[in-house]
């Protein structure tokens, strides 16, 4: 267990959700939340519930679309999948993040 968990930044969660859907295909809210926890190796403290406002936000912007389906255990659940504009958004956001990360990296690199 890591010593500290960091809070999830707002825009970060959106990108995490999109990225999860890209790699995993259509998934329900619980699946997305679990996947994010697994990928981050529990370094982020995520109240799983916060995934739902994020999904609503993405849905309102037309990046994901919901559909009722059946889970692997036979439960009725809402599955989310990426839309075309959602994929485009991932590209944009990724570029954004890389730029920020690179900038931050330059600042954080030991000066010599």
């Amino acid at each position: 267990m890591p010593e500290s968990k960091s809070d999830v930044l707002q825009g970060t969660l959106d990108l995490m959700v999109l990225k999860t859907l890209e790699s995993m295909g259509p998934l329900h809210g619980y699946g997305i939340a679990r996947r994010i926890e697994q990928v981050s190796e529990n370094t982020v403290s995520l109240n799983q519930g916060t995934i739902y406002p994020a999904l609503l936000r993405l849905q309102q912007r037309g990046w994901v679309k919901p559909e009722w389906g059946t889970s692997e255990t036979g439960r009725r659940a809402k599955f989310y999948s990426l839309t075309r504009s959602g994929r485009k958004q991932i590209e944009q956001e990724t570029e954004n993040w890389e730029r920020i990360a690179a900038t931050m990296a330059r600042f954080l690199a030991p000066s010599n």
Partner: protein
Amino acid sequence: MITWVRVFVSRCVAFFRERKLDDDLNEELSAHIELAMEENLQRGMSREQARIAALRSFGGVAQIQERYRTLRGLPWIATTLQDIRFGARMLLKNPGFTAIAVLTLALGIGGNTAIFSIVNGVLLNPLPFPHAEQLVALHESKPNFPRGSISYPNFLDWQRENHSFSSIAIARGYVFSLTGRGDAEQVNSEYISADFFSVLGLHPLMWRRKFNGAPNVVGQPVTLDGHNYTIVGVIPASFHLRFSNFSDQDVYVPIRQWGVSVLMQRSAGLAIHGIARLKPGVTLQQAKADMDEVTRNLAVAYPDANRGAGASIVPLKEQMVGDVRPFLLVLLGAVGFVLLIACVNVASLLLARSTARGREFAVRTALGASRARVVRQLLTESLLLGVTAGAISLLPAVWGTHAALKLLPAALPRAEEISLDFRVLAFTMAVSLLTSTLFGLAPALRSSQANPQMALKEGGRGSSGTRHRTLGAFVVVEMAIALVLLTGAGLMIRSLVELWDVDPGFNPHNVLTFGMSFPSSMVDASSEEIRATYRAFDDRLASTPGVVAVSPVWGALPMGMDDERLFWLDGQPKPTSDHDMNWALDYIVEPDYLRVMQIPLKRGRFFTRQDDERAPLVAVVDDVFARKYFPGQDAIGKRIRMSDTGNAVEIVGLVPHVKQWGLDTDDTQALRAELYLPCMQMPENLLSAMRTGSGMVVRYDGSLAAVSDAIRRTSRQISAEQVIAGYQTMDSVISDSLASRRFAMILLGAFAAIALLLACIGIYGVMAYLVAQRIQEMGIRMALGAKRSDVLLLIFRYCGRLTLLGVAIGTASAIGLTRLMRDLLFNVKPRDPGILAVVAALLVLVAMAACLIPARRAASIEPMQALRTE
């Protein structure tokens, strides 16, 4: 940007599908929990452990739902709707409070709107003409008449020689009889000079009535007084203008065609008044200076007629509204006070209620409502109250405007055009909304600030004393304002009563006046024929059923028309100019005039049938005349000489003074001497003016309608072309002369009554609230041995203290403020102690009555019950 639109649309769609989406969300979330539980169960947890773990990793379900919802729909609108629903429920739960608050505000807003609409229409904006600020009324100022008649030759010279006006014009009223188109009819008309309508900026247009609105009347002939005229233009029906003695009429005829020889006399006073338009950029002062020079030159050129004569220039607006301005301003002040009382009332009601609701706010705060949320809820309630009141206020506003217009003196400009002013309505609504919001909010801010725990513990019990003091102050303010208004109304009523008590010098009851036009065949009648016609007409009229006595009146008619005659005292040299002549009001009548008007003869004799054209010339004068021209002597037997003929006339009788200028202003007029002359002794030129007709006065018995019909029948029997028109009782003539005053009195009285009612409601509301707040205290007092009468006394003492303070402050304010209405009063001083005492007593009585119910409730408290509840 596109994304933004997309989000908005999706929120809007969601707004209308909330229930369905809520179900969706609930199902989705419970699926989440169950999926998590399944996984936990697989890991080997017990069912209960699995559930708790799932919920813990999910976070607060309710919080997520709330966050989800605020993102999903239009939360702002949704909460507002919720607030409105809740507010409406709260208001309906207290129907008494709501009704009082709403009605109070509605009365205040409605009344204010009505009066402001009228003031705006009449005072601020009375002239519906282009560049109305350039329009002025013109008069010729003479020693006796600051705003006298302009003679036609002088007008022509003014027109030619002035440098200040782009155009000037004159007008003079006249009554034609119109024949040849159905029944003969009297038409009111104005003789006008050519520029009259272009001065105003109007262009003749359309014509209605006698021609059934036919558009092709231009070019058609009409017969007026037996002469043929051709219609050359039509004035729009909307044209409305009254100033001096001009009023909008049916027919306008060029003044040059007025067939009287005196028209061209420079000294003639023919009731001609003018209007003019200032050139752009010319000020009133410049125009006055310019006209001073013009008239000075004319006085030099024509000293006989023009010595001492000048030009009087008055802005047309001022000329029209000058008389009613003080009345309307007082009303404006009064209605402002009423609005103030209404606001204070609502404020105290809201304040009292919010104190009672302190506990509710505390509970809400304890349950997590933010201060902003509570404030918003209260704001919604206040606005709801204000908007409802605003909507209801349309009723008193519309009705009040109509009612007030009906009471308005007819002379007011544009009375028929004034309608509800919606800008004014918006303004008063804004004021009342502001009030209700402010006072709805102030306590909310305070109560939401308070520690909810403290408030809950207190249980809405003993509230802060400052609030009680504020409420008390409100009551005092209301009482004071109501007292000021009542005093104003009292003074107006007293003035009117005083005026009605003034002896007009004659008995106006059962006296009818009307105009009578002879057939056009009379146009060429000789003096003998005219006299014979009058005698015959008088006799026929006198024998008409219901008619007691009858007389023609030419010249002046008390409070109706005025007319002057110039003379000098016999034995003195004839003055060289009119300016040096003596002036008197002249009544040209027949022997029965005194019987008609019931003017008592003081000494000597009045005219008889023998005072005709062959008999020596005689006159009767009034007290004022006798005192002025024959001080210390007996006027009877003295002789005066008339300026037009030079004939000597002997004074044979003395009568009391008649209030020619109205009950209120007669005493202050310069020209008050009255001279009676017999009709039959009029010189040729005057008699020929009477050949078209004359005014008549009749004393009648029995029903007015029957007499009017009988007179009309008699007239028609004599000739079908003879016209009777303009029936008016002398009572109504007098009452018209007091119209502005009565208008102000009725409205002021109404406002004072409203103010009293509102103040009464306010006192009741505050006292009822205070009693409710102190039920426990009363219970304790009574448990400790206080008698019911002690409790009753306690309440009355508090109420009485507020009342007396209000009365004291109100009396002081009334003494200060009623001074402003001194001009409107008659025979009563602004600080009349009698009225102040009556008003104060009335107020104390009403206040005590208002706190009777709360006091009795306090006295009927069962001590044990009061202590047990809460």
